[in-house]
Protein backbone atom coordinates (compact mmCIF):
# COMPACT_ATOMS: atom_id res chain seq x y z
CA UNK A 1 0.00 0.00 0.00
CA UNK A 2 1.40 3.31 -1.03
CA UNK A 3 1.88 5.84 1.71
CA UNK A 4 3.70 9.10 2.08
CA UNK A 5 7.45 8.68 1.88
CA UNK A 6 9.12 8.85 5.27
CA UNK A 7 12.34 10.85 5.23
CA UNK A 8 15.25 8.53 5.87
CA UNK A 9 16.98 10.99 8.16
CA UNK A 10 14.13 10.76 10.64
CA UNK A 11 14.79 7.10 11.33
CA UNK A 12 18.60 7.26 11.28
CA UNK A 13 19.60 5.73 14.58
CA UNK A 14 22.33 6.81 16.95
CA UNK A 15 22.93 4.04 19.46
CA UNK A 16 19.31 2.98 19.18
CA UNK A 17 18.02 6.46 20.02
CA UNK A 18 16.40 8.42 17.26
CA UNK A 19 16.59 12.18 17.19
CA UNK A 20 12.81 12.14 16.97
CA UNK A 21 12.66 10.36 20.34
CA UNK A 22 14.45 13.31 21.87
CA UNK A 23 12.08 15.76 20.19
CA UNK A 24 9.11 13.74 21.38
CA UNK A 25 10.28 13.57 24.97
CA UNK A 26 11.30 17.22 25.01
CA UNK A 27 7.97 18.38 23.55
CA UNK A 28 5.83 16.21 25.80
CA UNK A 29 7.80 17.16 28.95
CA UNK A 30 7.59 20.83 28.07
CA UNK A 31 3.85 20.57 27.52
CA UNK A 32 3.52 18.53 30.72
CA UNK A 33 5.38 21.13 32.78
CA UNK A 34 3.16 23.79 31.24
CA UNK A 35 0.06 21.78 32.09
CA UNK A 36 1.13 21.44 35.73
CA UNK A 37 1.92 25.16 35.93
CA UNK A 38 -1.54 25.86 34.51
CA UNK A 39 -3.41 23.45 36.74
CA UNK A 40 -1.87 24.83 39.95
CA UNK A 41 -3.71 28.20 39.93
CA UNK A 42 -6.86 26.49 38.66
CA UNK A 43 -6.91 24.35 41.81
CA UNK A 44 -5.42 26.93 44.17
CA UNK A 45 -8.33 29.30 43.46
CA UNK A 46 -10.46 27.04 45.66
CA UNK A 47 -8.35 27.88 48.75
CA UNK A 48 -9.62 30.62 51.10
CA UNK A 49 -9.53 33.96 49.30
CA UNK A 50 -7.88 37.10 50.63
CA UNK A 51 -11.11 38.52 52.06
CA UNK A 52 -11.79 35.30 53.94
CA UNK A 53 -8.25 35.24 55.34
CA UNK A 54 -8.55 38.90 56.32
CA UNK A 55 -11.28 37.91 58.80
CA UNK A 56 -9.20 35.15 60.30
CA UNK A 57 -8.52 36.85 63.64
CA UNK A 58 -10.89 38.64 66.00
CA UNK A 59 -10.54 40.61 69.21
CA UNK A 60 -13.04 39.95 71.99
CA UNK A 61 -13.79 42.15 75.01
CA UNK A 62 -14.18 39.76 77.95
CA UNK A 63 -14.59 42.33 80.70
CA UNK A 64 -18.31 41.65 81.07
CA UNK A 65 -17.99 37.89 81.59
CA UNK A 66 -18.48 37.18 85.27
CA UNK A 67 -16.91 34.20 86.99
CA UNK A 68 -18.92 31.11 86.14
CA UNK A 69 -20.36 32.67 82.99
CA UNK A 70 -19.48 31.91 79.42
CA UNK A 71 -20.21 33.48 76.05
CA UNK A 72 -20.47 32.27 72.52
CA UNK A 73 -18.90 34.27 69.76
CA UNK A 74 -17.98 33.53 66.19
CA UNK A 75 -14.56 33.14 64.63
CA UNK A 76 -13.98 32.02 61.02
CA UNK A 77 -17.72 31.34 60.86
CA UNK A 78 -17.42 28.84 63.70
CA UNK A 79 -18.70 29.19 67.25
CA UNK A 80 -16.17 30.03 69.99
CA UNK A 81 -16.82 29.40 73.67
CA UNK A 82 -15.14 31.77 76.13
CA UNK A 83 -15.68 30.59 79.71
CA UNK A 84 -14.67 32.26 82.94
CA UNK A 85 -14.11 29.21 85.18
CA UNK A 86 -14.96 29.25 88.88
CA UNK A 87 -12.43 28.15 91.48
CA UNK A 88 -14.43 24.95 91.93
CA UNK A 89 -14.35 24.19 88.23
CA UNK A 90 -10.61 24.81 88.08
CA UNK A 91 -9.90 22.50 91.02
CA UNK A 92 -12.29 19.94 89.55
CA UNK A 93 -10.34 20.03 86.29
CA UNK A 94 -6.99 19.83 88.07
CA UNK A 95 -8.10 16.89 90.21
CA UNK A 96 -8.45 14.61 87.21
CA UNK A 97 -5.78 11.98 86.54
CA UNK A 98 -4.52 13.25 83.19
CA UNK A 99 -2.97 9.92 82.13
CA UNK A 100 -6.35 8.25 82.23
CA UNK A 101 -7.87 10.65 79.69
CA UNK A 102 -8.57 9.88 76.06
CA UNK A 103 -6.71 13.03 75.02
CA UNK A 104 -4.32 13.73 77.93
CA UNK A 105 -3.93 17.47 78.58
CA UNK A 106 -3.88 19.53 81.76
CA UNK A 107 -5.95 22.67 82.23
CA UNK A 108 -2.71 24.65 82.31
CA UNK A 109 -1.79 23.35 78.87
CA UNK A 110 -5.13 24.54 77.56
CA UNK A 111 -5.06 28.03 79.04
CA UNK A 112 -2.68 30.97 79.30
CA UNK A 113 -0.34 31.10 82.30
CA UNK A 114 -1.74 33.43 84.95
CA UNK A 115 -5.15 33.35 83.30
CA UNK A 116 -6.11 29.75 83.94
CA UNK A 117 -9.72 30.82 84.59
CA UNK A 118 -10.20 31.75 80.91
CA UNK A 119 -11.02 28.66 78.91
CA UNK A 120 -11.30 29.50 75.22
CA UNK A 121 -12.33 26.68 72.87
CA UNK A 122 -13.99 26.13 69.54
CA UNK A 123 -17.64 25.27 70.06
CA UNK A 124 -17.30 22.43 67.59
CA UNK A 125 -17.61 18.86 68.82
CA UNK A 126 -14.59 16.90 67.64
CA UNK A 127 -16.82 13.98 66.77
CA UNK A 128 -18.82 15.24 63.79
CA UNK A 129 -18.90 18.99 64.23
CA UNK A 130 -22.11 19.79 66.15
CA UNK A 131 -22.18 22.67 68.61
CA UNK A 132 -22.06 21.27 72.17
CA UNK A 133 -24.40 22.60 74.87
CA UNK A 134 -23.23 24.20 78.10
CA UNK A 135 -22.04 27.63 77.14
CA UNK A 136 -25.37 29.40 77.47
CA UNK A 137 -27.28 29.75 80.70
CA UNK A 138 -29.55 26.83 81.47
CA UNK A 139 -28.02 24.45 78.98
CA UNK A 140 -27.08 20.92 80.00
CA UNK A 141 -23.38 20.80 80.87
CA UNK A 142 -23.07 17.02 80.76
CA UNK A 143 -21.94 14.57 83.41
CA UNK A 144 -18.63 16.35 83.95
CA UNK A 145 -19.89 19.93 84.28
CA UNK A 146 -18.35 21.19 81.08
CA UNK A 147 -20.06 20.73 77.74
CA UNK A 148 -22.41 18.12 76.34
CA UNK A 149 -22.92 17.43 72.66
CA UNK A 150 -26.54 16.46 72.00
CA UNK A 151 -25.87 14.90 68.61
CA UNK A 152 -24.09 11.75 69.72
CA UNK A 153 -23.67 12.26 73.48
CA UNK A 154 -20.10 13.38 73.99
CA UNK A 155 -19.40 14.71 77.49
CA UNK A 156 -16.64 17.28 78.07
CA UNK A 157 -15.34 18.31 81.48
CA UNK A 158 -14.66 21.78 82.88
CA UNK A 159 -11.42 21.96 80.90
CA UNK A 160 -13.44 20.98 77.78
CA UNK A 161 -11.66 17.62 77.64
CA UNK A 162 -13.48 14.62 76.22
CA UNK A 163 -14.51 12.29 79.04
CA UNK A 164 -17.31 10.15 77.67
CA UNK A 165 -18.90 9.55 74.29
CA UNK A 166 -17.62 9.15 70.73
CA UNK A 167 -15.57 12.34 70.28
CA UNK A 168 -11.90 11.47 69.73
CA UNK A 169 -10.20 14.60 71.11
CA UNK A 170 -10.75 17.54 73.43
CA UNK A 171 -12.49 20.67 72.16
CA UNK A 172 -9.91 22.57 70.14
CA UNK A 173 -8.22 25.51 71.83
CA UNK A 174 -7.59 28.09 69.10
CA UNK A 175 -4.43 30.13 69.06
CA UNK A 176 -5.16 33.15 71.27
CA UNK A 177 -3.38 35.93 73.09
CA UNK A 178 -4.43 38.36 75.83
CA UNK A 179 -3.82 41.87 74.53
CA UNK A 180 -4.81 43.23 77.95
CA UNK A 181 -6.69 41.96 80.99
CA UNK A 182 -9.98 42.51 79.21
CA UNK A 183 -9.23 41.93 75.51
CA UNK A 184 -8.29 38.62 73.96
CA UNK A 185 -7.23 38.17 70.34
CA UNK A 186 -8.25 34.88 68.76
CA UNK A 187 -6.47 33.65 65.64
Amino acid at each position, binding site marked *: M*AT*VEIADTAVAEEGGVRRRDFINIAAVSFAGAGAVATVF*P*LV*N*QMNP*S*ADVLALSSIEVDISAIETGQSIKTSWRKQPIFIRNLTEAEISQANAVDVDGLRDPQTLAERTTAGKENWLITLGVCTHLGCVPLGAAQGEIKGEFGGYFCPCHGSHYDTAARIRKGPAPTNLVVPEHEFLSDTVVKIG
Partner: protein
Amino acid sequence: MSFPWAKEYTPTTDFGQWMDKQLPLPRFVYNSVGAGYPAPRNLNYMWNFGSMAGLFLVIQIVTGIILAMHYAANAEIAFDSVEHIMRDVNSGWMIRYAHANGASFFFIAIYLHIGRGLFYGSYKAPREMLWLLGVVIYLLAMATAFMGYVLPWGQMSFWGAKVITGLFEAIPLVGKPIQELLLGGFAPDNAALNRFFSLHYLLPFVIVGVVIMHIWALHIPGSNNPTGVDVKGPQDTVPFHPYYTAKDGWTIGLALIFFTALMFFLPNALGHADNYIPANPLSTPAHIVPEWYFWPWYAVLRAFTFDFLFIPAKLLGVLAMFSAILVWFFLPWLDKSPVRSGNFRPKFKIFFGILVIDVLILGYCGGAPAEEPFVMISQVAAAYYFAHFLIILPLLSRMEKPEPLPNSITESVTGKPLNTAS
Protein backbone atom coordinates in the same frame (compact mmCIF):
# COMPACT_ATOMS: atom_id res chain seq x y z
CA MET B 1 -17.64 5.99 8.13
CA SER B 2 -14.23 7.14 6.97
CA PHE B 3 -12.18 5.39 4.30
CA PRO B 4 -11.80 1.62 3.95
CA TRP B 5 -8.04 1.91 4.38
CA ALA B 6 -8.34 3.62 7.76
CA LYS B 7 -6.13 1.93 10.33
CA GLU B 8 -7.99 -0.55 12.50
CA TYR B 9 -7.86 0.01 16.24
CA THR B 10 -6.12 -2.98 17.82
CA PRO B 11 -5.80 -2.83 21.60
CA THR B 12 -2.58 -4.51 22.71
CA THR B 13 -3.15 -4.80 26.46
CA ASP B 14 -5.63 -7.12 28.15
CA PHE B 15 -7.33 -4.13 29.70
CA GLY B 16 -7.55 -2.46 26.28
CA GLN B 17 -9.24 -5.53 24.81
CA TRP B 18 -11.63 -5.82 27.76
CA MET B 19 -12.50 -2.15 27.42
CA ASP B 20 -12.93 -2.43 23.65
CA LYS B 21 -15.49 -5.20 24.10
CA GLN B 22 -17.55 -3.40 26.70
CA LEU B 23 -17.23 0.29 25.87
CA PRO B 24 -15.16 1.01 22.75
CA LEU B 25 -14.44 4.59 23.79
CA PRO B 26 -10.70 4.35 23.02
CA ARG B 27 -11.66 2.99 19.57
CA PHE B 28 -13.96 5.97 19.09
CA VAL B 29 -11.23 8.44 19.99
CA TYR B 30 -8.72 6.55 17.81
CA ASN B 31 -11.07 6.73 14.85
CA SER B 32 -12.00 10.37 15.47
CA VAL B 33 -8.75 12.15 16.20
CA GLY B 34 -6.22 9.33 16.19
CA ALA B 35 -4.41 7.25 13.63
CA GLY B 36 -7.74 5.74 12.55
CA TYR B 37 -8.85 8.92 10.77
CA PRO B 38 -7.16 9.32 7.38
CA ALA B 39 -6.96 13.01 6.47
CA PRO B 40 -5.92 14.47 3.11
CA ARG B 41 -2.14 14.79 2.96
CA ASN B 42 -2.21 18.32 1.53
CA LEU B 43 -4.08 20.22 4.27
CA ASN B 44 -2.55 23.67 4.72
CA TYR B 45 -2.42 25.82 7.84
CA MET B 46 -5.97 27.06 7.28
CA TRP B 47 -7.09 23.61 8.43
CA ASN B 48 -5.65 24.20 11.90
CA PHE B 49 -8.33 26.47 13.28
CA GLY B 50 -11.05 23.91 13.95
CA SER B 51 -9.08 22.14 16.64
CA MET B 52 -7.89 25.52 17.88
CA ALA B 53 -11.48 26.71 18.31
CA GLY B 54 -12.12 23.46 20.17
CA LEU B 55 -9.20 24.16 22.50
CA PHE B 56 -10.46 27.65 23.30
CA LEU B 57 -13.94 26.27 23.89
CA VAL B 58 -12.42 23.96 26.50
CA ILE B 59 -10.47 26.86 28.04
CA GLN B 60 -13.70 28.87 28.23
CA ILE B 61 -15.58 26.04 29.89
CA VAL B 62 -12.84 25.30 32.44
CA THR B 63 -12.23 28.95 33.38
CA GLY B 64 -15.97 29.61 33.28
CA ILE B 65 -16.82 26.81 35.70
CA ILE B 66 -14.15 28.22 38.03
CA LEU B 67 -15.48 31.77 37.76
CA ALA B 68 -18.97 30.51 38.54
CA MET B 69 -17.58 29.22 41.86
CA HIS B 70 -16.88 32.81 42.92
CA TYR B 71 -19.38 34.88 40.95
CA ALA B 72 -22.78 35.91 42.31
CA ALA B 73 -25.55 36.41 39.74
CA ASN B 74 -27.41 39.08 41.65
CA ALA B 75 -27.75 42.63 40.41
CA GLU B 76 -26.85 43.97 43.87
CA ILE B 77 -23.52 42.20 44.17
CA ALA B 78 -22.59 40.90 40.71
CA PHE B 79 -20.19 43.77 40.02
CA ASP B 80 -18.61 43.46 43.45
CA SER B 81 -18.28 39.71 43.11
CA VAL B 82 -16.31 40.22 39.89
CA GLU B 83 -14.03 42.65 41.74
CA HIS B 84 -13.80 40.05 44.51
CA ILE B 85 -12.58 37.59 41.88
CA MET B 86 -10.05 40.15 40.63
CA ARG B 87 -8.68 41.10 44.04
CA ASP B 88 -9.33 38.38 46.61
CA VAL B 89 -9.61 34.99 44.95
CA ASN B 90 -6.27 33.22 44.53
CA SER B 91 -5.24 33.78 40.89
CA GLY B 92 -8.78 34.99 40.24
CA TRP B 93 -7.52 37.91 38.17
CA MET B 94 -5.70 35.46 35.90
CA ILE B 95 -8.66 33.15 35.49
CA ARG B 96 -11.02 36.02 34.69
CA TYR B 97 -8.61 37.54 32.17
CA ALA B 98 -8.17 34.10 30.61
CA HIS B 99 -11.95 33.84 30.27
CA ALA B 100 -12.42 37.37 28.89
CA ASN B 101 -9.60 37.07 26.34
CA GLY B 102 -10.31 33.41 25.66
CA ALA B 103 -13.63 34.49 24.15
CA SER B 104 -11.76 36.70 21.69
CA PHE B 105 -9.40 33.90 20.75
CA PHE B 106 -12.31 31.53 20.31
CA PHE B 107 -13.81 33.95 17.83
CA ILE B 108 -10.49 34.58 16.07
CA ALA B 109 -10.18 30.82 15.53
CA ILE B 110 -13.81 30.44 14.50
CA TYR B 111 -13.66 33.34 12.00
CA LEU B 112 -10.53 31.92 10.35
CA HIS B 113 -12.24 28.52 10.33
CA ILE B 114 -15.35 29.97 8.65
CA GLY B 115 -13.18 31.93 6.19
CA ARG B 116 -11.37 28.70 5.29
CA GLY B 117 -14.70 27.03 4.61
CA LEU B 118 -15.88 29.94 2.46
CA PHE B 119 -12.75 30.02 0.31
CA TYR B 120 -12.24 26.29 -0.17
CA GLY B 121 -15.92 25.51 -0.70
CA SER B 122 -16.10 23.28 2.34
CA TYR B 123 -19.84 23.97 2.51
CA LYS B 124 -20.52 22.21 -0.78
CA ALA B 125 -21.81 18.68 -1.26
CA PRO B 126 -21.28 16.33 0.45
CA ARG B 127 -20.60 18.61 3.42
CA GLU B 128 -23.74 20.80 3.61
CA MET B 129 -24.79 19.38 6.98
CA LEU B 130 -21.28 19.93 8.33
CA TRP B 131 -21.52 23.57 7.29
CA LEU B 132 -25.04 24.05 8.68
CA LEU B 133 -23.97 22.65 12.04
CA GLY B 134 -21.02 25.03 11.99
CA VAL B 135 -23.34 28.00 11.48
CA VAL B 136 -25.45 26.76 14.41
CA ILE B 137 -22.30 26.61 16.57
CA TYR B 138 -21.44 30.16 15.55
CA LEU B 139 -24.94 31.44 16.43
CA LEU B 140 -24.83 29.66 19.80
CA ALA B 141 -21.36 31.06 20.46
CA MET B 142 -22.57 34.59 19.76
CA ALA B 143 -25.53 34.18 22.11
CA THR B 144 -23.24 32.75 24.79
CA ALA B 145 -20.65 35.52 24.38
CA PHE B 146 -23.32 38.21 24.53
CA MET B 147 -24.84 36.86 27.74
CA GLY B 148 -21.39 36.40 29.26
CA TYR B 149 -20.58 40.04 28.63
CA VAL B 150 -23.68 41.03 30.62
CA LEU B 151 -22.64 39.14 33.75
CA PRO B 152 -20.04 41.59 35.18
CA TRP B 153 -22.93 44.06 35.39
CA GLY B 154 -20.84 47.06 34.40
CA GLN B 155 -22.06 49.91 32.24
CA MET B 156 -21.36 48.11 28.95
CA SER B 157 -22.97 44.96 30.30
CA PHE B 158 -26.14 46.74 31.22
CA TRP B 159 -26.46 48.87 28.11
CA GLY B 160 -25.41 46.01 25.86
CA ALA B 161 -28.22 43.94 27.35
CA LYS B 162 -30.62 46.81 26.94
CA VAL B 163 -29.69 47.45 23.31
CA ILE B 164 -29.65 43.80 22.23
CA THR B 165 -32.94 42.92 23.90
CA GLY B 166 -34.25 46.17 22.45
CA LEU B 167 -33.76 44.60 19.02
CA PHE B 168 -36.69 42.30 19.70
CA GLU B 169 -38.88 45.30 20.33
CA ALA B 170 -38.66 45.96 16.60
CA ILE B 171 -40.78 42.89 15.84
CA PRO B 172 -44.23 44.16 14.82
CA LEU B 173 -47.10 43.79 17.31
CA VAL B 174 -45.48 41.25 19.66
CA GLY B 175 -42.09 42.98 19.97
CA LYS B 176 -42.65 44.69 23.30
CA PRO B 177 -44.13 41.62 25.05
CA ILE B 178 -41.25 39.50 23.70
CA GLN B 179 -38.68 41.94 25.06
CA GLU B 180 -40.40 41.94 28.46
CA LEU B 181 -40.51 38.16 28.39
CA LEU B 182 -36.79 37.95 27.64
CA LEU B 183 -35.86 40.41 30.35
CA GLY B 184 -38.40 39.41 32.96
CA GLY B 185 -39.03 43.12 33.40
CA PHE B 186 -39.00 46.42 31.59
CA ALA B 187 -35.26 46.93 31.71
CA PRO B 188 -32.35 44.59 32.47
CA ASP B 189 -32.38 43.80 36.18
CA ASN B 190 -31.99 40.89 38.54
CA ALA B 191 -34.34 38.60 36.63
CA ALA B 192 -32.47 39.16 33.37
CA LEU B 193 -29.07 38.78 35.02
CA ASN B 194 -30.05 35.49 36.61
CA ARG B 195 -31.42 33.94 33.45
CA PHE B 196 -28.46 35.16 31.42
CA PHE B 197 -26.15 33.49 33.92
CA SER B 198 -28.15 30.28 33.79
CA LEU B 199 -28.07 30.24 29.98
CA HIS B 200 -24.46 31.36 29.80
CA TYR B 201 -23.59 28.29 31.84
CA LEU B 202 -25.83 25.98 29.80
CA LEU B 203 -25.11 27.02 26.21
CA PRO B 204 -21.41 26.07 26.09
CA PHE B 205 -22.42 22.48 26.78
CA VAL B 206 -24.99 22.70 24.02
CA ILE B 207 -22.15 23.97 21.82
CA VAL B 208 -20.06 20.94 22.82
CA GLY B 209 -22.96 18.72 21.76
CA VAL B 210 -23.24 20.42 18.37
CA VAL B 211 -19.44 20.30 18.00
CA ILE B 212 -19.60 16.53 18.45
CA MET B 213 -22.24 16.34 15.70
CA HIS B 214 -20.07 18.71 13.61
CA ILE B 215 -17.11 16.33 13.92
CA TRP B 216 -19.37 13.35 13.29
CA ALA B 217 -20.66 14.98 10.11
CA LEU B 218 -17.06 15.77 9.15
CA HIS B 219 -15.92 12.19 9.45
CA ILE B 220 -18.50 10.79 7.08
CA PRO B 221 -17.18 12.44 3.90
CA GLY B 222 -13.78 13.21 5.49
CA SER B 223 -11.99 16.56 5.43
CA ASN B 224 -12.06 18.83 2.42
CA ASN B 225 -8.63 19.94 1.21
CA PRO B 226 -6.99 22.90 -0.56
CA THR B 227 -7.58 21.41 -4.03
CA GLY B 228 -11.20 20.56 -3.26
CA VAL B 229 -10.62 17.30 -5.15
CA ASP B 230 -12.04 14.18 -3.52
CA VAL B 231 -9.71 11.71 -1.87
CA LYS B 232 -9.25 8.90 -4.39
CA GLY B 233 -7.13 6.40 -2.52
CA PRO B 234 -4.81 5.72 0.38
CA GLN B 235 -1.99 7.62 -1.33
CA ASP B 236 -4.02 10.82 -0.86
CA THR B 237 -4.24 10.61 2.91
CA VAL B 238 -2.10 10.45 6.03
CA PRO B 239 -3.30 9.30 9.46
CA PHE B 240 -4.62 12.18 11.57
CA HIS B 241 -2.28 11.09 14.34
CA PRO B 242 0.63 11.82 14.41
CA TYR B 243 0.60 14.02 11.31
CA TYR B 244 -2.17 16.49 12.12
CA THR B 245 -2.05 16.17 15.90
CA ALA B 246 1.55 17.34 15.68
CA LYS B 247 0.72 20.08 13.19
CA ASP B 248 -2.29 21.27 15.20
CA GLY B 249 -0.22 21.08 18.37
CA TRP B 250 2.36 23.42 16.89
CA THR B 251 -0.14 26.14 15.97
CA ILE B 252 -1.97 25.65 19.27
CA GLY B 253 1.37 26.33 20.99
CA LEU B 254 1.75 29.51 18.93
CA ALA B 255 -1.81 30.59 19.67
CA LEU B 256 -1.28 30.01 23.40
CA ILE B 257 1.81 32.26 23.28
CA PHE B 258 -0.27 35.09 21.79
CA PHE B 259 -3.13 34.30 24.16
CA THR B 260 -1.00 34.42 27.30
CA ALA B 261 0.84 37.51 26.06
CA LEU B 262 -2.49 39.31 25.70
CA MET B 263 -3.88 37.91 28.93
CA PHE B 264 -0.86 38.87 31.05
CA PHE B 265 0.33 42.08 29.42
CA LEU B 266 -2.70 43.62 27.70
CA PRO B 267 -5.62 41.98 29.48
CA ASN B 268 -8.05 44.84 28.87
CA ALA B 269 -6.92 45.74 25.36
CA LEU B 270 -10.00 44.13 23.81
CA GLY B 271 -12.38 45.18 26.56
CA HIS B 272 -14.02 48.49 27.24
CA ALA B 273 -13.11 50.78 30.15
CA ASP B 274 -16.78 51.63 30.76
CA ASN B 275 -17.42 48.11 31.94
CA TYR B 276 -15.40 48.85 35.08
CA ILE B 277 -18.15 51.31 36.07
CA PRO B 278 -21.05 49.59 37.88
CA ALA B 279 -24.27 49.38 35.87
CA ASN B 280 -26.29 52.55 36.10
CA PRO B 281 -29.76 52.44 34.54
CA LEU B 282 -29.95 56.23 34.56
CA SER B 283 -26.82 57.03 32.56
CA THR B 284 -25.91 55.68 29.14
CA PRO B 285 -22.20 55.60 28.19
CA ALA B 286 -21.31 58.07 25.46
CA HIS B 287 -20.31 55.38 23.01
CA ILE B 288 -21.84 51.91 23.25
CA VAL B 289 -20.02 49.23 21.32
CA PRO B 290 -20.27 45.48 21.55
CA GLU B 291 -17.19 43.26 21.70
CA TRP B 292 -15.08 43.35 18.55
CA TYR B 293 -16.39 40.03 17.24
CA PHE B 294 -19.85 41.51 16.84
CA TRP B 295 -18.74 44.66 15.05
CA PRO B 296 -19.50 43.64 11.44
CA TRP B 297 -23.07 42.68 12.33
CA TYR B 298 -23.50 45.75 14.51
CA ALA B 299 -22.50 47.86 11.50
CA VAL B 300 -25.17 46.12 9.39
CA LEU B 301 -27.72 46.86 12.10
CA ARG B 302 -26.85 50.54 12.19
CA ALA B 303 -26.63 50.85 8.41
CA PHE B 304 -30.41 51.00 8.12
CA THR B 305 -31.27 54.55 8.99
CA PHE B 306 -34.20 54.86 6.60
CA ASP B 307 -37.69 53.38 6.38
CA PHE B 308 -38.28 51.20 3.34
CA LEU B 309 -41.83 50.93 2.03
CA PHE B 310 -43.87 50.11 5.12
CA ILE B 311 -40.94 48.64 7.09
CA PRO B 312 -39.52 50.96 9.75
CA ALA B 313 -35.76 51.48 9.83
CA LYS B 314 -35.40 49.78 13.21
CA LEU B 315 -37.02 46.55 12.05
CA LEU B 316 -35.08 46.70 8.81
CA GLY B 317 -31.78 46.91 10.68
CA VAL B 318 -32.68 43.99 12.91
CA LEU B 319 -33.78 41.85 9.97
CA ALA B 320 -30.64 42.73 8.06
CA MET B 321 -28.38 41.89 10.99
CA PHE B 322 -29.91 38.46 11.49
CA SER B 323 -30.09 37.85 7.74
CA ALA B 324 -26.39 38.61 7.39
CA ILE B 325 -25.68 35.38 9.26
CA LEU B 326 -28.79 33.41 8.33
CA VAL B 327 -27.83 33.76 4.65
CA TRP B 328 -25.02 31.33 5.41
CA PHE B 329 -27.62 28.61 5.89
CA PHE B 330 -28.45 28.95 2.19
CA LEU B 331 -24.88 29.24 0.99
CA PRO B 332 -24.53 25.63 -0.19
CA TRP B 333 -27.44 26.22 -2.56
CA LEU B 334 -26.52 29.76 -3.59
CA ASP B 335 -23.06 28.80 -4.83
CA LYS B 336 -23.76 26.18 -7.44
CA SER B 337 -20.26 25.94 -8.84
CA PRO B 338 -19.18 22.29 -8.84
CA VAL B 339 -15.60 23.37 -8.16
CA ARG B 340 -14.99 23.59 -4.44
CA SER B 341 -11.62 25.25 -4.00
CA GLY B 342 -11.27 28.97 -4.69
CA ASN B 343 -7.78 28.18 -5.95
CA PHE B 344 -9.29 27.01 -9.25
CA ARG B 345 -11.89 29.76 -9.55
CA PRO B 346 -10.06 32.87 -10.81
CA LYS B 347 -13.04 35.23 -10.51
CA PHE B 348 -14.37 33.81 -7.24
CA LYS B 349 -10.93 34.36 -5.78
CA ILE B 350 -11.17 38.09 -6.49
CA PHE B 351 -14.70 38.39 -5.14
CA PHE B 352 -13.74 36.41 -2.05
CA GLY B 353 -10.92 38.89 -1.42
CA ILE B 354 -13.36 41.77 -1.80
CA LEU B 355 -15.77 40.09 0.64
CA VAL B 356 -13.02 39.75 3.25
CA ILE B 357 -12.13 43.43 2.87
CA ASP B 358 -15.84 44.29 2.95
CA VAL B 359 -16.37 42.45 6.25
CA LEU B 360 -13.25 44.10 7.71
CA ILE B 361 -14.64 47.51 6.69
CA LEU B 362 -17.99 46.60 8.28
CA GLY B 363 -16.12 45.55 11.39
CA TYR B 364 -14.26 48.84 11.53
CA CYS B 365 -17.48 50.82 11.08
CA GLY B 366 -19.24 48.71 13.72
CA GLY B 367 -16.62 49.71 16.27
CA ALA B 368 -16.70 53.38 15.23
CA PRO B 369 -19.22 55.96 16.49
CA ALA B 370 -22.56 56.04 14.67
CA GLU B 371 -21.82 59.16 12.63
CA GLU B 372 -20.72 60.06 9.12
CA PRO B 373 -18.82 58.90 7.21
CA PHE B 374 -19.15 55.53 8.95
CA VAL B 375 -22.92 55.22 8.46
CA MET B 376 -22.63 55.77 4.73
CA ILE B 377 -19.68 53.39 4.46
CA SER B 378 -21.63 50.78 6.45
CA GLN B 379 -24.55 51.12 4.07
CA VAL B 380 -22.41 50.51 1.00
CA ALA B 381 -20.51 47.68 2.67
CA ALA B 382 -23.69 46.02 3.95
CA ALA B 383 -25.24 46.25 0.48
CA TYR B 384 -22.16 44.64 -1.02
CA TYR B 385 -22.17 41.92 1.65
CA PHE B 386 -25.66 40.81 0.66
CA ALA B 387 -24.92 41.25 -3.02
CA HIS B 388 -21.99 38.87 -2.67
CA PHE B 389 -24.13 36.04 -1.35
CA LEU B 390 -27.39 36.68 -3.16
CA ILE B 391 -26.24 37.96 -6.56
CA ILE B 392 -22.52 37.48 -7.19
CA LEU B 393 -22.17 33.87 -6.02
CA PRO B 394 -25.20 32.49 -7.95
CA LEU B 395 -24.17 34.35 -11.11
CA LEU B 396 -20.52 33.45 -10.74
CA SER B 397 -21.25 29.75 -10.52
CA ARG B 398 -22.95 29.98 -13.94
CA MET B 399 -20.63 32.36 -15.72
CA GLU B 400 -17.18 31.53 -14.40
CA LYS B 401 -14.87 29.17 -16.26
CA PRO B 402 -12.84 27.34 -13.63
CA GLU B 403 -9.24 26.33 -14.18
CA PRO B 404 -8.52 22.64 -14.75
CA LEU B 405 -8.49 20.61 -11.54
CA PRO B 406 -5.66 18.22 -10.69
CA ASN B 407 -6.59 14.57 -11.17
CA SER B 408 -5.89 13.81 -7.56
CA ILE B 409 -4.51 15.23 -4.34
CA THR B 410 -1.31 13.24 -4.76
CA GLU B 411 -0.83 14.57 -8.29
CA SER B 412 -1.22 18.14 -7.07
CA VAL B 413 1.32 17.53 -4.32
CA THR B 414 3.96 15.56 -6.22
CA GLY B 415 3.38 17.01 -9.67
CA LYS B 416 3.41 13.45 -10.96
CA PRO B 417 0.43 11.56 -12.42
CA LEU B 418 -1.29 9.22 -10.01
CA ASN B 419 -0.03 5.91 -11.34
CA THR B 420 3.65 6.79 -10.94
CA ALA B 421 3.41 8.39 -7.51
CA SER B 422 4.49 6.03 -4.77
